[in-house]
């Protein structure tokens, strides 16, 4: 057999790597569709970390104890760190952070729809940690074996911190559910509000998820939406018992025949509405991001101008 040349050789190498479930690295050849799918998936993930700071930042100044305030600040800061880390990983695919930010602000790139719900009470800090971060981890742990090396490595690091965050969320809810009746009611209300949206974080039912097959073939998605959702709802059901809180879904059960967890119907109309921009906070989240970006333009320009002047001065001194 003659040696393969150029793209053909690349494709063969790529196929072989995927076939043996190994890693593609930035300098490796990869199919354009694979690259684009990764950019979409990874930048969406990065944007979600950044937009996801907002609902939690909303409670930093009002956290009810200094310890909780410190934990929350550290958590939101971690999210900024995750965003930075993911943007870097995505940049290895040949797109800049500025380009990704521009896509976000232009509404061309998405972020996870869950962050279009408001964090209206302190208990939401618990529910977001327990449920939203919990869903994220369920989604991300398998991605620690994603086929794109920088993505997989980012996921390893991020999952470690996320599971820490999830435990903190669980602890917030535990404290509330063992607190005053008002605190417990606050916790239950938060769980009620975040349950459906967090289950829908895994995306549409498998029967309605056309892109999933290709992503699974490429090993940048490892389990189907429904499979992950089932794992997640099982985790919730078991931990809810420890919390002493109810899930707002009487249909949640472990099916003894399949060994899988099941849940009741989800409001996919709401999901589509929020996705289409009709969530409670879509405009607010984008406005805040835009305000920070536009309002900070003069700072970034100043930093660039100063760096350029310093570089010119250094060059002059050398000459």
């Amino acid at each position, binding site marked *: 057999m003659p040696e393969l040349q150029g793209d053909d050789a690349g494709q063969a190498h790529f196929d072989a790597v995927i076939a043996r479930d190994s890693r593609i690295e930035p300098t490796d050849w990869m199919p354009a569709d694979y690259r684009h799918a990764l950019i979409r998936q990874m930048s969406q993930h990065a944007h979600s970390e950044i937009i996801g700071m907002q609902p939690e930042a909303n409670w930093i100044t*009002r956290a009810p104890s200094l310890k909780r305030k410190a934990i929350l600040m550290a958590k939101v800061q971690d999210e900024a760190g995750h965003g930075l880390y993911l943007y870097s990983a995505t940049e290895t695919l040949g797109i800049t952070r500025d380009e990704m930010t521009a896509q976000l602000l232009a509404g061309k790139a998405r972020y996870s729809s869950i962050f279009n719900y408001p964090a209206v009470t302190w208990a939401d800090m618990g529910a977001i940690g327990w449920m939203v971060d919990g869903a994220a981890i369920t989604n991300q742990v398998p991605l620690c074996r994603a086929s794109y090396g920088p993505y997989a490595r980012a996921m390893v690091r991020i999952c470690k911190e996320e599971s820490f965050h999830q435990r903190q969320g669980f602890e917030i809810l535990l404290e509330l559910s063992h*607190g005053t009746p008002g605190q417990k009611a606050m916790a239950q209300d938060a769980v009620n509000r975040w349950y459906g949206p967090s289950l829908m974080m895994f995306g549409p039912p498998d029967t309605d998820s056309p892109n999933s097959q290709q992503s699974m073939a490429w090993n940048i998605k490892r389990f189907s939406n429904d499979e992950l959702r089932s794992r997640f709802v099982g985790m919730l059901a078991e931990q809810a018992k420890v919390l002493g809180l109810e899930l707002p879904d009487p249909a949640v059960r472990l099916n003894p025949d399949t060994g899988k967890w099941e849940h009741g119907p989800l409001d996919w109309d709401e999901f589509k509405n929020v996705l289409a921009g009709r969530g409670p906070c879509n405009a607010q989240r984008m406005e805040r991001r835009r*305000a920070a970006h536009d309002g900070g333009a003069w700072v970034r*320009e100043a930093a660039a101008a100063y760096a350029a002047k310093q570089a010119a001065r250094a060059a002059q001194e050398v000459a």
Partner: protein
Amino acid sequence: SGDVAEYALRLGDDALILAQRLGQWISRGPELEEDVALGNIGLDQLGHARSFLSYAGAAWGKTEDDLAYFRREPEFRSAHLFEQPNGDFAATIARQFVAASWQYPLYRELSSSSDPMLAAIAAKAVKEVDYHLDHSTQWVLRLAGGTEESRRRMVAGLDLMWPFVGELFEDDPLTTQLGDAAVVPSSLTAEFDRTTGAVLAEAELAVPAHPMATGGGRRGRHSEHLGYLLAEMQVLARDFPGASW
């Protein structure tokens, strides 16, 4: 003693109020790196606040949260600098620059306090504040030497914050009677002037001529800003008195 607790309360309140202000920046920074940096500095300050307030509270049978959430405005002992609004990024940097140029020598000296707890808290804090000073210094230089707009804003930010420098260095009976346990504020003036003077000179900025504002924070007399900050900070804790979180 009660005097040491009073002194710890001042330093704790300074750091707490500053941490609260910095917490407002998170998700609003001019770049993500600054969300992280200002968050870090805020977290450090919050950590210092918790140490000082816990220590102060121990003398009075109170927790850090009792002190943070259940005192009224006139019972807070922070200086006016720390409660100044964030303003734009340059104003925040100006506030940080003054705060760190004051806290750094303060904590360094305090780390040899005759009070072992104050010394320990300060010894840990001074390393972190060293970074805060470097962070704000770099930004003063960048903004002053960046664009015309950034220079104008940096000057305006320094003008806004400079009136609150003087209060930091005012001695009063408490700081003098504490002897070796505390640091006499006025003893830090020369170093502050030297540190800030050198940075401003490198930035080719004049030391702001803005006259010093009447302070009073150490006696519980605050500006019009603190009330809003406390209303927000305390609202939830006060809505559930006695609750645990």
